[in-house]
């Protein structure tokens, strides 16, 4: 099975202190460290596990700049067979639809049975996967928590729905799936693995390679634009329970049950 995973490089929320820049329209990006968007990493692991079972190759692609090669190498170190950087000055400022258009052009240049995305980017809007599927006229399922390959170009998948329940589906290939975290346990990528792929050339695709009209993507074509960015004010903080141990335990149970955590 030929699998494409669309991945993205994002500031790692656990390793950064996100602050607003002085203009107040973006975050301060000078000292950020980045990693692969977490759900995308699960998607790559899932792709690797599928090809390990049924054969095939895994391609990882990202729309971005040279800095984004970092995550492509990490995913190659994880085991992806091929990585592609989709990059062009004309792509800058694309909205979700723009990114989906670029990916659609890339998908049409290849032959993929299955396209995986993360359920959402940590700095994104969980929209590209669905739009990409629509543009390609492929079936789409989101929040996927397991994938089983069936006979006759079909997959059996489960989707997470509210309340922790799962829904099982059958879906035809080719399709687009957005992968939920927890679908697997992504393997560790060590320094050694990254060093081993450090000099593997990564092909770059731009508007000409994708035969894409630059006017349909980028800032000029974007219909959704970020106009502001703010950090919400801190709330009151924790609610302290004042009582003896038994009372506190009862109160905690009540609070957890009220939030649906106990049945």
């Amino acid at each position: 099975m030929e699998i494409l995973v669309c991945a993205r490089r994002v500031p790692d929320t656990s390793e950064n202190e996100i602050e607003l820049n002085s203009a107040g329209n973006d975050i301060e990006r000078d000292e950020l460290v980045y990693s692969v968007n977490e759900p995308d990493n699960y998607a790559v692991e899932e792709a690797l596990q599928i090809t390990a079972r049924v054969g095939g190759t895994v391609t990882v692609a990202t729309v971005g700049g040279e800095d984004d090669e970092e995550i492509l190498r990490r995913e190659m170190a994880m085991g992806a067979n091929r990585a592609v950087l989709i990059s062009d000055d004309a792509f800058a400022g694309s909205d979700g639809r723009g990114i989906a258009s670029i990916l659609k052009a890339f998908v049409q240049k290849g032959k993929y049975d299955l396209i995986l995305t993360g359920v959402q980017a940590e700095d994104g809007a969980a929209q590209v996967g669905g739009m990409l599927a629509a543009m390609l006229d492929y079936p789409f399922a989101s929040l996927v928590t397991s994938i089983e390959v069936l006979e006759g170009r079909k997959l059996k998948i489960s989707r997470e729905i509210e309340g922790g329940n799962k829904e099982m589906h059958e879906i035809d290939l080719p399709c687009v799936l957005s992968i939920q975290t927890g679908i697997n346990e992504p393997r560790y990528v060590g320094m050694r693995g990254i060093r081993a792929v450090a000099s593997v050339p990564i092909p770059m695709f731009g508007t000409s390679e994708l035969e894409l009209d630059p006017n349909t993507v980028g800032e000029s074509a974007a219909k959704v634009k970020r106009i502001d960015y703010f950090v919400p004010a801190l709330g009151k903080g924790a609610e302290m329970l004042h009582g003896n141990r038994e009372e506190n335990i009862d109160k905690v149970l009540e609070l957890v049950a009220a939030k649906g955590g106990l049945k």
Partner: protein
Amino acid sequence: MEGFYSPVQVTSWLAQGRALFLVIHFLGIAGFCYIVARRLVPLVRGERDLRFDRPLARLGRVLKFWLGQWKHPRYRTAGTLHILIFAGFILLAMRAFTVLIVGVSPDFVMPGLGGKTGQSYNIITDYAATIVFLCMVFAVVRRLVFRPARYLVPAKYGKSHTPDAIFLLVLIAILMVADSLFAAAKAAAESQQGQPIEALAVLSLPWILKIALASASLTTVGKFYFGAYLLHEITFYFLLCYRPFGIQFHVETSLFSIYFAKLDRGTLKPVRWGVGDEHLDEVKSFGVKTFEDFTWKHMLDFYSCSDCGRCSDNCPANAVGRPLSPRFITIKGRDYAFQHYPMFGRSNNGKALIGNVYSEDEIWSCTTCGACEEECPLLVEYIDKIVDLRRGMVDDGKVPQSLQKPLKALESRGNPYGKLEKKRADWANTKEFQQACTVKTLDHKNGADTLYFVDSITSYDDRMQSIGRATAKILEHVGKNFGILGAAERDSGHEVRRFGEEMLFIGLRDHNVEAIKASGVERIVTADPHAYNALRHDYKDVPPVEHISQVIAGEVKAGKIRFNAVANKNNVYTYHDPCYLGRHNQVYDDPRDVLDAIPGLKRVEMARSRDRSFCCGGGGLMLFYEPKEEQRMGVKRVQMAAEAGANVIVTACPFCMVNIEDAIKVAGMEGKMTVIDLAELAEQQLARESQRAA
């Protein structure tokens, strides 16, 4: 030959069996050689291990740990038994060989053991055989009746080892009886014929057996003589050939195991012996994935283990129900070797160890505290094996999810918490602290003689920052010209390396070494034993390093530090030895000397202290690992402190502080037990000039 007389009849009894004895000799020796050759097959296929250096140091260890049985008295009963048996075997060796040869050459006398010397030797060995026999009886009774808990085999590790142990004990007892009967029959025959006889040792086994044979006819005595010889010979060779199939192989291998044992504490084996860091990229596979990835010495360890259970008896992971028992790391390794390198037919090697022989959780459960290695009478190595297995898992991407984030953060930010580099020195920048003490960050403008290497947890953890501030205040108090690396410091990488991520460790180490060299300091001080061990053993070409407890102890002796008396005279203190300060670096006395220099401080020792200290739960990345366990190690440790009658635990390691503080809460002992770092306590008690004047 003077004074030694062999009557014709006695030797002629053996002469009839000479052909038989020769055949048994030949079969026994050939069998043993074949078996040992087969046992060497995996060792030859194992990884290389450079253990041929420093022969004098190695011989010294043979004298101490092999001939001197140094570790044995740590377990009083079993140790005494073993020393007696070992001494008996050493003494009896010549006698046994003489007896074996006598069957073929009746007049043989071992060179040097004729005459008076021979008579004395025979008296001594009469007793030796008797003592070994009694030890066997005692050992069997102990196994069957008293059943020490450490010999139990948990169901998941298979069947009980007791039947095999008893079988071997009985065989040795039979050997002793046969040897004694042989001597007794000879003496009885000689005395019945009125020939001059050699005196048997009074009350020894041969002496008693001779009395028993006194009234027997000469023919019967002759039969006993022949029978005893045959029994001795068969038992001897059966044992010789059977030992390589079980725990008694250590009789042969221990000498080599101890000679080739690891010489340097606190160090780790390289990824590959003989492959420098700069060539590691060329190494195809890291660590131990299949049995053949173990070094030959580590395989030899598997053979040498005598299944005494002392490692697991002292293993904190085993004590709290984690799925790790060092004893079975070895036993399973040996079983694998026996099974996959059979006596006949081809070996079938190459099977993955993780998932088949060892489990991932088992290998991650180790805190590398070193208690097992400290206890092992045969100096079997565990930490290097565990780390090698982890290197293999890291290489295959098998790392628990809980460890992946901190490892990634170490890679991008140089600390496991993912905190910003520029905030690494924030602990020294609080207003209140800056009024009392200034800590300069070393750069090309600000130099110093001494570097205070803070490391990640003390830099970033709110609670542990207090240890950093106390350390700085002490250094300032004794007039050290010191500074820190600040944002240029990275995690020491001590646990990164011990968790198997060698390449990440090398990156951290190289960064730190460069920063330390650039700072131009002449010495390093740290309050973190893990950093101390890394700087001392894992780093090269850095200035000498001291732990803060050594600095304080030195300054107390030099009279530069004086302490005020403790405020609360009712407090009882106990010192908890951090593994990487104590066992791995042998710093036991300095922290205690510091405590004892504080006037009015009442100190007690826990039952487990110094080299038997009980790990608090592990440091570094171990804080992120979520082990399967029934109880926390720290909780056990806090209970041990309470049993010792203490209500204040003093430790000298930020990770011990985390674990013990948590454990006090988990054990519900808040208000009854507190914990304080040695640097914090020393700083609190410092008698400063102003106070002295007042």
